[in-house]
Structure formats: C-alpha cells, structure tokens
C-alpha cells in the first residue's frame, strides 16, 4: 500500500509508515548437525542396509540382495530397461520369490545433467519401470513401494560420464 507510485502524485509522493515484512520466526534451525533420516540410507554406494533392526539375519538378506545386484542402470534421459537391467531384475525376482516376506522400496535416481523437477519425474519413471518389470515376472505389487530422488542422492560423486552412468539407477532396498 505504500511506496507504489500513484499517478496522481507524479512528482511528489509519500511513504506511509511501514513495518518490516513478515518475519518467519521460530523453527529457526540450528546448525546442520543432523544429516540423519532420508540422506543416510542412500548416499553410501552399495551398502544400503536396513538400519532399524540390526538382527544378523536381516543384514544377511540385505547383503544377499546387494550381492545378486540391487540396482539397474539407465541410458541418459531414459527409463527403458536395458537387457542387462532385465537380467539383474531376473535375479531379484528369484530372490523375492524365495524370500516371500520381504518388501522392498525401489528408489529412482538420475544424473546431474537434467533440471531438478524433470529429474524427479524421470527418477519416478525409472523406479516404476523397474517395479513394473518385477510385477510382470510375478512379484506381488503390494510388496513394492517406489520413490524418486531425482538428482538429489548421487551414488558416486563426480562430474564425469562414469559417475553419471552409475547415478542413473534404480536401487531396490529391503524395507
């Protein structure tokens, strides 16, 4: 209401009393002490072990999934499964069939060479394509959750083709 020019006052205009803009008070974060929750489970490359209950049996199952191949990779700007990816997912199907109580989350990820929102969608498409393949091979869709992290959670740090290739991925994690 103040200090927008009124054409009535071409030469002279006034400032009405003003207050400062609304301040967002409270909830001011402390220093970035806790990098907890979402970031930790996926940032480490490979050892995406479930971290809540650390019974040795569950660790073994997670390690088993990692050892047979917990992730598939994609071409640039693509969510099409390669034949190599389908081969890996075939092993995941066997694994899930022999561990019927296991539920997984498939995380879709992208390299850094796209815009943020588009990559969120692309990561979603990668996770969904991966899930759809598992389902087509007989896995109950109720056992699979998907989530996209876009380009927010690189597995490999580096701005080069090799790192980007590793980061374009869908990773299956035991819940």
């Amino acid at each position, binding site marked *: 209401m103040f200090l927008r020019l009124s054409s009535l006052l071409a*030469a*002279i205009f006034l400032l009405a009393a003003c*207050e400062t803009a609304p*301040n967002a008070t409270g909830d001011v974060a402390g220093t970035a002490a806790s990098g907890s*929750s979402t970031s930790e489970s996926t940032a480490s490359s490979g050892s995406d072990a479930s971290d809540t209950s650390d019974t040795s049996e569950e660790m073994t199952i997670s390690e088993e999934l990692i050892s047979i191949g917990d992730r598939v990779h994609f071409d640039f*700007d693509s969510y099409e499964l390669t034949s190599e990816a389908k081969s890996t997912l075939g092993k995941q199907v066997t694994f899930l069939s022999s561990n019927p109580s296991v539920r997984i989350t498939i995380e879709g990820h992208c390299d850094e060479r796209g815009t943020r929102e*588009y990559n969120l969608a692309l990561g979603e498409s990668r996770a969904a394509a991966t899930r759809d393949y598992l389902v087509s091979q007989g896995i109950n869709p109720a056992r699979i959750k998907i*989530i996209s992290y876009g380009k927010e959670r690189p597995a490999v740090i580096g701005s080069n083709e090799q790192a980007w290739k590793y980061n374009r991925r869908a990773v299956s994690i035991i819940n």
Partner: protein
Amino acid sequence: MKSKDIKGLEMILVSYIKLVSIFARTLGMLMAVLALSISSAFAQADTDVITITEGNVEPTPIAITDFIGPDGEATDIGREIASIISNDLEGSGLFRPLSQAAFFDPPSDVTERPDFADWRPIGASALLIGKAFYNDASMIEVEFYLWDVLRSELIAAGSGSVSEKGKRRISHQIADVVYKKWTGDDGYFDTRIVYVAESGPAAKRIKRLAIMDQDGHNHIFLTDGSSLVLTPRFSQTVQEIAYLNYFNDEPNVYLLDIQSANSELLGSFPGMSFAPRFSYSGKSLIMSLARSGVTNIYAMDLSTRQITQLTNTPFIDTSPSYSPNDGQIVFNSDRSGSQQLYIMNSDGSNVRRLSRGKGRYATPVWSPRGDIIAFTKMLRGQFYIGIMNADGTGERLLAKGFLVEAPTWAPNGRVLMYFKQNPTNSDGSGGESYLYRIDITGFNERRIITPEGASDPAWSPFLP
C-alpha cells in the same frame, strides 16, 4: 520550482491523505512538465517488447548523501540508509553512486533547493538527499528528495516513519522510487527471496528452506534440515510458500505459512506431488503428480482442495507456470522425445509447442509482464538461462555454465535470478551452488551472497 514549495514538504509529517491533495494542487504544473513519465509495467509491455536497450548499460551517476538529521541523534542510521540505497542502485547496474569523498558541501538543510553548481562538476546526473531523525515516539522519521541535477528539477520526494527494524525496508523503498523515476520500470529492491540453503558434502547434502531480503539481509532458515526440501515458491501475497518436502520419505507439496513457520501437507495423493506454483489470483496452485511412473499436470483449487487434471499423456509433463492473467500455462514435456516447452490454456486445452531451437528446454517461467518466458536450456553439455517471447520467437541466451538452472523473475519483469552449480570432484569436494541474478538485457550478472550454498531461488512478488 521554488524553494517555498520544497519547504512545504515538511508538512509531509502531518498526514498522507492531506498531502496528496495539497501537492496535487500546488505542484500540478510541475507534474505536467515532468520529463520522466510514469507508466505501468504492463502498459510498457505492449509497446516495448524486449529490444536490447544498450543505452541503459551506461549507468546513471548519482550522488547520495548521508541522511543526517537536524539533531544528529540518528546519524548512524542515516548513514546506513544512504548505504543501503546506494548498494541497491549500484547492484542494479543502472546507477553509479559517486564517492562521497568527492562531495563539496553536503546541504545543511535538505529541504532547501540544492546549489547545483556544487553537484554538476562531480558528474552527478541525479542527487538524492535526505534526513533521518527520531521523533517523540522514538520512531525514525525519514525524508528524501530526488533531484535531476542536469535539469535542476525535483523529481520525487517523500517521507516515512519506521521503527528501527524498518530502516532497511524504507531504504529499499526509496531506492525503488529512484529506480522507477530513472528507468520507468518498477523497482525490485523491496522484495524477498526464498531459496534452498545447501550445506555438507555432495554425498550428504543438507537442504533447508531459507528466506531473505533481495540484498541478502534479514536471512532466516525456515526448516531444520531433517527432511529434504526443494523448489520453494511464493504465493502472490508473499505470506505462503509452496515447496516439495520429503517428510517421512514421502515427497509431497507442502504449504508453509511464513509468519508462523508452520507447514501443512497440500493434499494426499497416491504418488509424488511436486513442481508447485501459485496462480496470480492466488485461488489455485498448479503442480505435477506422478502416478505409476507417469507425470501429469494438475490444478488445485486452494479453497476446496479439489484437483483437476490438465494434461493426460504417458510422458513427463512438469514445471508448469501460469501467465500473469492465469489464462495460460507454460510447461515442459518430453512428449516429442526430448524436453521441450509447451503452452496450453489453463483448462488444459489447446496445447501447442513453444520451443523450436536446438537442445532441451526446461523450467519455463512466465514474466510478470506477460511478454517473455524465461527457461533453462541444455545443449551440448552446457546449461543456459534464456528468454524468448511468449510466442516462441526471439530466443536469447543470457547466462551459461556447467549447470545453471531455475530462473525466477523479479516482479518488475526486468531481472532474473537463478542458481549455478560447480562440477563435483571424485574426492567428494565441489558441487557448490550459488545464486546469481542478471538483467534481461544480458548484462550485470552478479552473485547473491548467502551464508552457505544456495539453489532453487524464488523471487517474491511486490510486497504488500
């Protein structure tokens, strides 16, 4: 203009409304001959469609005196006000504040007509003088007078009364007046920025929402970093922020009330909701919903929370942005095989492709003036910030880098802000990200100083 008229300005302190009529009468003649006319940004948009105005690159030399009051009690504040104004104007690239060391003789009474013979020799085209002093209620009274030195004319004057907290804001408002008088465009100094503050190594980056004045002051963190947050956007009232929050590992659009800092989940959907943007009317919000790997654009009525599907394709349709009259939406889609820009009516009808150049196009944002669309472009391994006319013609690239992304408009439609990210190194270092802004004529690119790394900026509308 006689000094008697200027003396009259002291009455400003009396009443806003009263003075409107007083000055309308006493200065009517002056108004008629004012060289700098006032035209609204929208009126300009009709005639002044994005020609590069090279003449504006030569900044206007302006002398800004400290705003010293008669009793000297508010001297520090008066200096600070002059410094804030000077910093704003200098930062725009359109003004060159002159060193105060060159000033002859600061006027002892700012209400007196200055002796222009003192100001012309130092090269001043504009002269801003003012005073600041405490009134009986311990409020700071600020007065300013903007003179055209070459024409020996008073261009603008005004006054205000603020608490100490309000000193920065009134300074920005005075800078906005100077900017408008000289450029014809509204100023953008009395505005705020919301963005994502980034800290920690690239592998474990912590992201928090933060808000600040456009010059980086009054910086406040709005979230604590416990969940990943992205892409904040202001409502037209500048009271709410829509953003993407990974709370409980379920990415969804939330609404944050700036005053209370409370966040609210904006509807619950089977998939991810993201890429929110408010309509100009404030009645609705557009965003993307991803369901089973397919991403389409939806509009939500903010009063009923009902959603309407606007696109229905098996492709990725995202990053929607309304035109200023809310009649159209520009967005990006890979329906042609690669990311390109499209426009549709805001009911989803009449979709047509906008971008025709080489490369991939993303994150379109409609200028508040309505005539231009800014975007991110990816071509041969480089990222660019560019603009094109709303009919797809006249593409021009303004900024370039390894990764530049997410343009956002100053509310005057004349300046863009975006972020630039550095490449990362295999040892985990690098990847720092910072905010920059640039004039849409492609000059004066400047970094915005933030306490830590920064991405996903959103420039506020004009503050209410």
